């Protein structure tokens, strides 16, 4: 939101504005002690005096932040010392107020929709709304703060590691809590709150600091992220519903990461990627112990996975070899056609239009659970007193697969091969003229990406129990691409976030599932228009998408020279 208020006005009103802002924040804080809603069916029962609901308690964090950001500077710049400059006090307060307003609006809208009309909003809700509007209006009159310099402050290593650990724990809690919200209104209010917190933290400058801390403690970060992801099933008390969603998210994320190698690192648009997932799934299905499997050869899963990956990558070679010589544009449409060929072929290999391999459109049902080294993935068991069900088993397996894909992704990216890919993206002709074997490198990415999709597909076949051609259609490829674009091409974290958002939202917001593709189509157009680098930007990608932005180039370079942590080939990647 850009409201331009002249600087003189801002200076003249700075004290009254601050006072009004503080009053607004206080009003919001008080409001949670009042009921917001007339009926207890709306959201999580906001009908009590003096007993805030969980969502109200989350909400209050935002006005408290706003209050602190507005009130603390009153103690004087001298006493704040170096913190006075490190944080962007005024702008952060504005962001916090805006975020609080957003949450209030979503909450009131949810109450009105769920109970039928704004008449059901109780005084507390109105107090919160008025407080939020006051706070936003007041903070607009505060002078803008300079850019935060939190990342310039020296911080001890233990602090960095502690913050990372705490952050991961918060992440785990957030994920578990968000999944436990079955009501669409609850979910949206919580999502608005979460987005608000992220925006405030970014405005404060915490992200820049975190980025530095993460770069310095890369291994701690990765390790703790996996510990947290591993611990997730223990928060679910054996609920299979959520674990099913979680394991689907992971399968989707693994596939999106594979696609990200092709699209994000090399810049090739693969629109038939889902077909490679399908090729892996069908391979695993026909080699499985299912009564409907058509091939009388049932190797152990370890072998099946390799065959599935190989089949997918051979298909990749078959499609890639002729097209990659010509141009990236053709690749997009040929892969689109390939996706269609795959679907049609799987439909036709039913015994009447062709040899029977896939049972045609009915596909292969009844695929038994995985059995790895005698461990049956269908068996529930109890660990540390928590029921661990079938989906949790697959969830953990997918975590391993994702870890594998991330290692492949990062280690290739930060190597001679990754440099070749960047060179191809930047100027293919110059790369060729410098001796880079562009064709081989593109083919490697394309077939390698297909291999990873094949592996994910093999697990998916067992996870889904049945495999049919209609699960692997073009729209699913578009959906995958949307995850990569939304999250951030060429980044791991971004694509994980993008995949989670895109898979989780339709599950949690049922009313919206019919509009899912419509919105994702729009999303792709808007992302390309306004933020082509995605939620989490790969710095080099960002530079490519904003070729004329000199300021950005200087910023990135400054980062590079001071932190020496971004493009440094010696430090990134995982040692095995």
């Amino acid at each position, binding site marked *: 939101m850009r409201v331009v208020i002249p600087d003189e006005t801002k200076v003249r009103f700075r004290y009254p504005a601050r006072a009004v802002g503080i009053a607004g924040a206080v009003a919001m804080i008080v409001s949670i002690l009042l009921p917001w809603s007339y009926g207890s069916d709306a959201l999580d029962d906001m009908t009590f005096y003096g007993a805030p609901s969980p969502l109200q308690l989350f909400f209050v964090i935002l006005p408290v932040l706003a209050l602190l950001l507005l009130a603390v500077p009153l103690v004087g710049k001298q006493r704040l010392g170096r913190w006075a400059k490190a944080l962007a006090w005024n702008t952060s307060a504005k962001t916090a107020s805006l975020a609080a307003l957003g949450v209030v609006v979503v909450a009131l809208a949810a109450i009105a929709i769920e109970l039928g009309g704004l008449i059901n909003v109780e005084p507390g809700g109105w107090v919160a709304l008025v407080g939020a509007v006051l706070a936003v209006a007041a903070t607009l009159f505060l002078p803008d703060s300079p850019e935060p310099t939190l990342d310039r402050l020296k911080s001890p290593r233990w602090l960095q590691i502690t913050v990372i650990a705490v952050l991961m724990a918060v992440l785990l809690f957030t994920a578990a809590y968000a999944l436990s919200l079955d009501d669409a209104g609850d979910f949206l209010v919580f999502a608005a709150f979460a987005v608000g917190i992220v925006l405030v933290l970014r405005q404060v400058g915490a992200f820049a600091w975190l980025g530095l801390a993460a770069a310095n403690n890369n291994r701690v970060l990765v390790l703790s992220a996996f510990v947290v992801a591993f611990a997730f099933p223990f928060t679910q008390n054996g609920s299979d519903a959520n674990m099913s969603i979680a394991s689907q998210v992971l399968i989707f994320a693994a596939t999106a990461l594979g696609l990200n190698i092709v699209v994000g690192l090399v810049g090739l648009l693969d629109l038939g990627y889902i077909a490679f997932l399908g090729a892996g799934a069908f391979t695993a299905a026909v080699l499985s112990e299912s009564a409907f499997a058509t091939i009388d050869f049932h190797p152990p899963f370890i072998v099946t996975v390799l065959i599935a990956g190989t089949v997918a990558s051979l298909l990749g070679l078959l499609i890639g070899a002729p097209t990659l010589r010509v141009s990236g544009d053709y690749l997009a449409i040929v892969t689109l056609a390939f996706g269609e060929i795959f679907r049609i072929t799987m439909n036709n290999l039913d015994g009447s239009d062709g040899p029977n391999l896939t049972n045609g459109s009915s596909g292969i049902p009844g695929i038994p659970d995985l059995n790895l080294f005698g461990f049956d993935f269908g068996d529930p068991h109890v660990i540390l007193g928590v029921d661990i069900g079938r989906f949790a088993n697959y969830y953990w397996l997918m975590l391993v697969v994702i870890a594998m894909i991330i290692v492949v992704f990062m280690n290739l990216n930060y190597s001679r091969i990754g440099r070749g890919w960047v060179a191809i993206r930047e100027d293919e002709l110059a790369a060729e003229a410098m001796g880079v074997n562009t064709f081989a490198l593109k083919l490697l990415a394309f077939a390698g990406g297909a291999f990873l999709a094949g592996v994910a597909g093999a697990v998916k076949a067992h996870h889904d129990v049945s495999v049919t051609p209609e699960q692997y259609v073009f729209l699913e490829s578009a959906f995958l691409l949307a995850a990569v674009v939304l999250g951030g091409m060429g980044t791991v974290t971004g694509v994980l976030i993008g995949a989670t958002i895109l898979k989780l939202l339709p599950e949690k917001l049922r009313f919206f599932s019919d509009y899912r593709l419509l919105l994702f189509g729009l999303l*792709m157009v808007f992302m390309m228009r306004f933020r082509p680098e995605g939620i989490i930007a790969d710095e080099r990608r960002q530079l490519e998408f904003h070729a004329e932005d000199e300021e950005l180039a200087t910023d990135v370079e400054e980062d590079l020279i001071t932190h020496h942590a971004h493009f440094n080939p010696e430090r990134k990647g995982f040692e095995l």
Partner: protein
Amino acid sequence: MELFFQQLINGLSLGSLYALIAVGYTVVYGIVQLINFAHGEIFMIGAFGAYATWMVLGQPTDWSAPLSILVLLPVMIIGGIIASVTVALLTERLAYRPLRNAPRLAPLISAIGVSVFLQEFVRLFYGRIPGFPDAKSAIPFPVVHGISGEIIQLGGVTIQMSAVFTVGALVVCTVFLWFFVNRTKTGRAMVATSQDPDTARLMGINVDRVIMAAFAVGAGLAAIAGVAHGLSYGNIGFRMGFLAGLKAFTAAVLGGIGNINGAVVGGLVLGVTEAMATTFIPGQFGSSAWKDVWAFVLLILVLVFRPQGLLGAKVVDRA
């Protein structure tokens, strides 16, 4: 031999449909080097626009054959063209033009987004217009007396009137295109821009307007193809643009992308190949279930052996 001629006729009719759509890909590619993935959807919008026009006319079902052919059909076609041209221009303005200087990947992804959006938009909202049928499944296309279901017997060969319409439409459109490109100022500006956009700009050509003209011409022909599709198959659906678009793109590549004559030739060759493949490939793989696969195999073969297409054109190689 009779079977051969029958399939030739079927192939030419199918090929004319592909050619009408392929022109849109080729014209736009020739000028902005963009594969407009959403073009198949523009074709679909044309068909739905024609249907909407028929609804607005009060769903006339009992008009006589001459009246249907001379009044109803042209009005429906115009309605379809208005719909598809409007959508195509909006797409160009909102989704492609802002990305003209972005890396190549950006407009491609944007085009995919537009394609998905348009399909879903029609699926979700067409039926919401009062009185309109739900578009979540196929809608029967209006009957145009004198064309729908009418046939001509020529020896042992059966010719659908809808096929005559499709081929006739292609002939008329090709003549129109020739005239447009060679005899009008905008058409010549288009040729100039496709050869050298920078110089064209220096010569005072309004490149934005030329690009819009390219999108409009392509969309107009696609709308005619949409009507032809409705007449030939008897129904239309929100998904019809996907496969037709892919095939038409194949036709454009086959003829040499960027080359307007090539698109026409490529469309016809592809249509005939498809028709012949279902008849003359022996065994299970000759069944009609495989015809789409053969079309795409042809696409890949062309890319391997003759990437510049049958008639030759700028090779897509902007490394």
